[in-house]
């Protein structure tokens, strides 16, 4: 068996598969483009690997389909058909070799990419990370075996490219489509896609990964069984593992919006790490590498807010899965400015961009230090709301608002006229108006632009 396995390995395209996946992943978006979005966070890296399956699966399916069609292209089907050796003992070694190669390709990509994360990662939950990576590896095996089946059932030169494109479409389109089906939110987790664009403390529980792995492996086993069996009767029976897994696993997957449903907050990752001294500045354990860098700009924001009565006394990073999915804790009475570090990446040495550090103070002062999520206004802020935020920030910092091209055109005009209106009243009145605006935002009542420019809510 060993000798035949070696010969079969030479007959297979296992090694080219590993090389192709590695080459593409190294050159592609994954390593060159995405490496700055991992933020020294193992879970983000693991999830990034899952989202890049979109590309890797194309290669795995193509390699499988090419391998299965090889006997036809080489014209040895006729010759092999006259030999006694059963199909399974000939094709199983190939299927196994390709499975090992695809897992190797996936794990090697992860290993290479981890050089960007390992040096300054401050937290790891090995079990959850192993689960997320494991599901990715299982997906590669399933993809390769599905490719083998496709190439075997349709022995044509066109099968590998067509099967690859179909795999790409399935991964790209179906995960969205499945998620949008009425009660089908759980169905989107039947595909392995995960996005790394979640906040630091988000994690995929081991149970979710286990369910996904069982389901995806069952699909792979079905494909393999159908590929290996020489008789049509067994080929039909081969769908059983996949059907069984679908019936058992699908109802148990968490419900929610698409792949986000897979995530929960990891309580250990979300534990706060605080800077020495006062006022209090804290970040979650996963983002601890950024604490020393954010402390100064965070305290600058608190100093600016201190011009107001009942000003907040702490800046704390709020553990969330995704912006706009979670409200601030009900216990919040306005004594804390909630910080969102998601937009601020770090380089491979764990350093934030100096521009980002400067920008952080301004960001914390937006809406007078009240989170836009507090009243779930993120999507519903009007141009006047944006203008009010610009004006109040400028007032707190003590200089006129700088034109911001990112704002809608109407907001810029409103900012200019609003600033003139606010600064034309006495300083005590100005302070009162900004304080009233903050109160309105905390209670989710009142028109903030009117408050700033006319001194009262309509």
């Amino acid at each position: 068996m060993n000798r035949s396995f070696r010969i079969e390995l030479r007959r297979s395209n296992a090694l080219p598969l590993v090389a192709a996946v590695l080459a593409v992943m190294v050159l592609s978006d994954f390593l060159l483009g995405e490496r700055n979005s991992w933020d020294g966070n193992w879970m983000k890296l693991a999830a990034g690997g899952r989202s890049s399956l979109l590309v890797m699966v194309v290669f795995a399916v193509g390699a499988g389909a090419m391998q299965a069609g090889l006997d036809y292209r080489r014209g040895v089907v006729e010759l092999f058909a006259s030999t006694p050796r059963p199909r399974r003992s000939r094709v199983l070694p190939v299927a196994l070799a390709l499975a090992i190669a695809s897992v190797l390709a996936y794990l090697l990509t992860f290993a290479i990419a981890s050089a960007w994360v390992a040096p300054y990662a401050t937290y790891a939950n090995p079990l959850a990370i192993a689960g997320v990576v494991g599901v990715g590896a299982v997906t590669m095996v399933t993809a390769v075996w599905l490719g083998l089946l496709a190439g075997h059932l349709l022995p044509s030169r066109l099968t590998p490219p067509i099967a690859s494109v179909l795999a790409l479409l399935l991964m790209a389109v179906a995960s969205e489509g499945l998620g949008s089906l009425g009660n089908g939110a759980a169905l989107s987790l039947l595909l392995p896609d995960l996005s790394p664009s979640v906040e630091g403390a988000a994690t995929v529980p081991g149970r979710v990964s286990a369910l996904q792995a069982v389901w995806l492996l069952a699909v792979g086993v079905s494909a393999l069984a159908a590929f290996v069996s020489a008789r049509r009767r067994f080929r039909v029976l081969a769908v059983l593992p996949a059907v069984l897994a679908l019936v058992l696993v699908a109802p148990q997957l968490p419900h929610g919006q698409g792949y986000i449903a897979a995530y929960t907050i990891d309580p250990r990752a979300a534990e706060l790490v605080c800077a020495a001294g006062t006022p209090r500045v804290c970040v979650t354990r996963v983002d601890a590498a950024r604490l020393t860098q954010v402390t100064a700009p965070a305290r600058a924001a608190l100093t600016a807010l201190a011009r107001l009565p009942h000003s907040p006394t702490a800046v704390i990073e709020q553990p969330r899965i995704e912006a706009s999915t979670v409200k601030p804790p009900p216990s919040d009475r306005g004594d804390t400015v909630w910080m969102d570090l998601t937009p601020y990446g770090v380089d491979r040495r764990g350093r934030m961009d100096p521009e980002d550090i400067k920008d952080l103070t301004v960001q914390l002062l937006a809406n007078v230090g009240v989170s836009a999520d507090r009243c779930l206004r993120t999507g519903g802020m009007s141009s006047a709301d944006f203008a009010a935020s610009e004006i109040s920030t400028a007032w707190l910092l003590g200089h006129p608002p700088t034109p911001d091209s990112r704002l809608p055109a109407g907001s810029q005009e409103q900012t200019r006229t609003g600033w003139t209106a606010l600064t034309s009243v006495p300083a005590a009145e100005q302070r009162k108006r900004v304080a009233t605006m903050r109160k309105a935002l905390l209670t989710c009542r009142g028109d903030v632009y009117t408050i700033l420019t006319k001194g009262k809510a309509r």
Partner: protein
Amino acid sequence: MARIVSSDETTPTRYAWSVQAEGLMVKAGRHLAVNGLDLRMGVGVQGLLGPNGAGKTTLMRALATIVPPSGGDLILLGQRMRAGGDARTVRRSLGYLPQSFGYYPRFTVREFVEYMAWMKEMPAREIPGAVQRAIERIGLADRAEAKLKTLSGGMLRRVGIAQAVVNDPQILLLDEPTVGLDPEQRVGFRELLREMGTDACVLVSTHLVEDVAAACTDVVLINEGQLVWQGSPQDLAGAGGGGDAGDSPAERGYSALLRDHRGRAANDPQASGDTWGTGRRPAR
């Protein structure tokens, strides 16, 4: 020391013919390419002759257990072949060189023959010796480690023959084996055929009547899926007259037998095949 004797060696042969077909029908696609063929073949070298489209390749594929019979009886080495039946035992004793012979270009000669020996389920410890013997027999010992993609067409054909004979088959089926061989190689190949024919049933399908006359102990002539004639090369040569087409006695005999059969079939469609049966008498 005592030697373990396999059951194959002690089981007496329980069949009179290596290949026995009665009213055999085999489809090539939807077309019935072998249509009511009666044939018996034993040990020896038999040449399979017939015009293009006579059903030679389809018959070879049926004997190689690739296509099951769609009618009639086919008994190989005493075992009846059926659709969905298990041909595994028979296949272990088969050697087959298909008309279009595929291969893996990156394999060496030795690797390819070795792989085929494994496919034929030879005992692992016998494989290296058998592979070396087969490669020597076809005269490629000095190229054993060469990659197949570096070989000429004639050499590839010889590799095809080597894989066919590696398991010392009891039924050896060679479809157009001499294509691409130069005259010297053809002479060597005929020697190999005679050697194989001493204890196996060898069937060589060919267009070259001369090959048959030189190397075969028996000639099988088929047309339109039916047996036209079966006899010795000498009888084949004797069947033709001066007026028949051909450059040699064997070729003239071939033309005469075929012309005679066509005339007979045109006059009496019912007389096809069965009358000529498996008797070894010439058609006239």
